[in-house]
């Protein structure tokens, strides 16, 4: 068997829900069980955000920026706010900086717990999935209590934060942190001792130190390969210059390493939040920022739960930005993906994809999916079917003859429920 090329099979994975519940297509060429070639197709989630940002004022953009990503919404708005505050030459109050750090670390906790759950689900360890998501719920409730919303917190504004943390909130957070600390210590024990978990995760999705540097990996993926790359330490923003931060690294370079880094980071986040609550300075939480931002450009970066997040803002002196470009962390981690997949087994592909914690909506931002002329269209069943038939016919497929009995049944079911 010198030539295996005739045994190759190409299988498509996705675009619907390849690993996480998000779209992305992976065309894998298999030789037996081994992946020899991977073609990654992304771009299903383009919403035209960057164009839309250019037609709204800086204040309106606050809420648009938050909706780049549901999981790491706070880190995007921190990067955006601090760039504009710096362009205007405004120094925000210390208390606001501390509150930003507290919310950022709570967000990191909930993002990493979400990842832990998803990763556990991908490897068939659903008990851990349930546990992690149950614990995540406590963090989300806490965020809702502090900011008013479970996701898209809306706590940042230009010049500070919009909601204060009082003693009662601080007490509640500490109570929850105690429970979380016990739980996360248990997960750490699990990840370091449980033989099945280690056997499943070790040597999957390998990305060693040199490759991580070459492909520009960021965040936990880079730190799991032994690169101490953490913006909180490199370029302390908000209150991170006063708060002690330990950068967690690991030298496994595989999914096990990424799990360990994330679990240890959660413990680190807990100690950061405790420090911030104990040393929360008194005073104002809001400074005044002018509506018109002076002309200039600014590059601002933050450490999102998934890695380094870079915002570029160009202002022409009006109250509407000239150009905003967001480099989300997932965008950097995609480049190493192909390298990780090739040479691995098909069964390892979902967990290898999930292990970089990809956020498709972060990666894709720039395209119009809907025309923005103010009208929305509603398809009924028939219209939707006609659209799909036309779509397929344009691509050389004729599905018009296929009868769908489902439609009739669907109406009957609906009638029954109405009665």
């Amino acid at each position, binding site marked *: 068997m010198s030539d295996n090329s005739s045994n190759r099979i190409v299988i498509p994975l996705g675009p619907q829900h390849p690993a996480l519940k998000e779209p992305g297509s992976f065309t894998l060429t298999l030789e037996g069980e081994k992946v020899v070639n991977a073609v990654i197709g992304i771009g299903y989630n383009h919403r035209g955000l960057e164009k839309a940002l250019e037609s709204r004022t800086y204040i309106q953009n606050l809420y*648009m920026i938050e909706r780049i990503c549901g999981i790491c919404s706070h880190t995007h708005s921190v990067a955006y706010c601090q760039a504009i505050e710096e362009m205007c030459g405004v120094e925000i109050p210390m208390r606001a900086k501390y509150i930003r750090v507290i919310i950022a670390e709570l967000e990191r906790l909930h993002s990493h717990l979400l990842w832990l759950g998803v990763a556990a689900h991908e490897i068939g360890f659903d008990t851990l999935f349930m546990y992690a998501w149950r614990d995540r719920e406590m963090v989300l409730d806490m965020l809702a*209590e502090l900011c*008013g*919303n479970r996701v898209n917190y809306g706590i940042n504004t230009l010049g500070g934060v919009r909601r204060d943390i009082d003693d009662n909130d601080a007490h509640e957070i500490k109570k929850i942190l105690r429970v979380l600390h016990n739980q996360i210590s248990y997960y750490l024990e699990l990840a370091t001792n449980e033989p099945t978990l280690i056997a499943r995760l070790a040597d999957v999705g390998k990305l060693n130190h040199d490759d991580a540097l070459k492909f520009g990996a960021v965040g936990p993926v880079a730190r799991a390969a032994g690169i101490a790359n953490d913006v909180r330490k490199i370029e302390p923003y908000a209150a991170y210059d006063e708060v002690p931060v330990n950068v967690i690294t690991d030298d496994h370079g595989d999914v096990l390493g990424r799990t360990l880094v994330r679990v240890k980071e959660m413990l680190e986040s807990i100690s950061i939040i405790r420090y911030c609550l104990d040393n929360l300075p008194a005073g104002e939480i809001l400074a005044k920022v002018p509506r018109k931002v002076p002309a200039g450009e600014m590059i601002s970066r933050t450490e999102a739960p998934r890695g380094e997040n870079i915002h570029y803002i160009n202002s022409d002196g009006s109250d509407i930005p000239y150009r905003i470009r967001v480099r989300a962390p997932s965008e950097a981690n995609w480049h190493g993906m192909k390298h990780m997949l090739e040479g691995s087994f098909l069964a390892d592909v979902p967990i290898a994809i999930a292990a970089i914690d990809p956020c498709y909506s972060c990666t894709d931002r720039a395209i119009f999916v809907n025309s923005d002329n103010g009208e929305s269209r509603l398809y009924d069943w028939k219209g939707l079917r006609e659209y799909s038939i036309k779509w397929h016919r344009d691509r050389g497929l004729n599905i018009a003859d296929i009868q769908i009995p489902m439609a009739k049944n669907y109406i009957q079911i609906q009638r029954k429920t109405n009665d």
Partner: protein
Amino acid sequence: MKIRLPGRILMKMLTTLVSKPATNTNPYDATNIPSKYRGRIVYDSSTCIGCGICMRDCPTKSLRVENIGTKENKKFIMHYSLGRCIFCCQCVDSCPKKSLSQTRDFLLATTDSSDLEEIMR
């Protein structure tokens, strides 16, 4: 990992049998809405000066102030589109006269989309 307590699973089973569900029984039960929850906006026309800052800052253009009185004797009403509102409460922060305020009202679902267009006086 070693099993530290042999009867641990059994204990867990028995406690699970008698414990209450983790979820609450909405809508029969009182839901636990956070105190800072951002819900529907309410408007007080008596203090409004019609400056329109709320309209300018609203990210989704869901607010529209209108003067229904005369030029001398102004009277304002607010057209509020619940379907467009993202409940960010930026208008509440922006309002110089505090005519707008947030409530914790969140049960806003309706079967008729015209219910979502409100006129607040």
